[in-house]
């Protein structure tokens, strides 16, 4: 019973971070701000959700595979975000200052 409550709380926290990351992706005024939202929020949400699912399954080989997916994703997603922001800087996208209009 305790294991079920723990895993449900992990998955719900991950779902909350997914929601805030998506709202940030839609509502922020500039491209670099949106990259912040999806790069940080999505990574943390995936990490918490996968740990919750691994706890629910008990201690077996499948849980080890789920944790290894989480570790791979924890390193790979920030690298992808870094590549996108480097491409934006090379193309000449300017940062946003307060008082300008939405871009």
């Amino acid at each position, binding site marked *: 019973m305790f294991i079920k409550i723990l895993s449900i709380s992990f998955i719900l926290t991950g779902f909350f971070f997914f929601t805030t990351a998506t709202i940030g992706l839609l509502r922020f005024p500039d491209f670099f701000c949106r990259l912040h939202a999806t790069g940080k929020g999505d990574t943390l949400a995936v990490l918490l959700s996968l740990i919750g699912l691994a706890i629910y399954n008990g201690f077996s080989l499948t849980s080890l595979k789920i944790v290894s997916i989480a570790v*791979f994703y924890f*390193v*790979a997603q920030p*690298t992808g975000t*870094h*590549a996108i922001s*480097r491409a934006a800087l090379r193309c000449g996208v300017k940062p946003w200052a307060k008082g300008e209009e939405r871009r």
Partner: protein
Amino acid sequence: MIRTTDDVIIKTVSRIFTPFIQIFALYVIMHGHYSPGGGFQGGVILGAGFILLVITQGLDETRRRFSQKLDTIFCSIGLLVYSGIGMLCLIIGGNYLDYSKLSKILPVLAAKARSLGILGVEIGVGIGVMAVMYSIFSDIVTGGE
């Protein structure tokens, strides 16, 4: 011609991850009979690992490790393993790709001979698919040289 990325983070992360991607592709090939996967899917993942190396390290560096001559040899070896097992079954006395006749050469039962025959065919298909994907990608990149 693809030049190398002049960024430390992307080069280091892709160099760290390539062995794990290749080991995972071998796992997918070997466990084709039990979980989703098999020969073709594992070959595609192996080819994607090499394409990751070409994108981040540049075409010249990757060609130093996996030359065009070796690539052509791997294409032929993949096809040879796959057709060779089929022809072996034909020569012994059964139909084409009739693996149970392999029990006359190897000292195993008929059911185990079928399992070993399928495994050999999957390995051949995986090697061939990897080599062909790498060859098509380098042809597209260099514009047909």
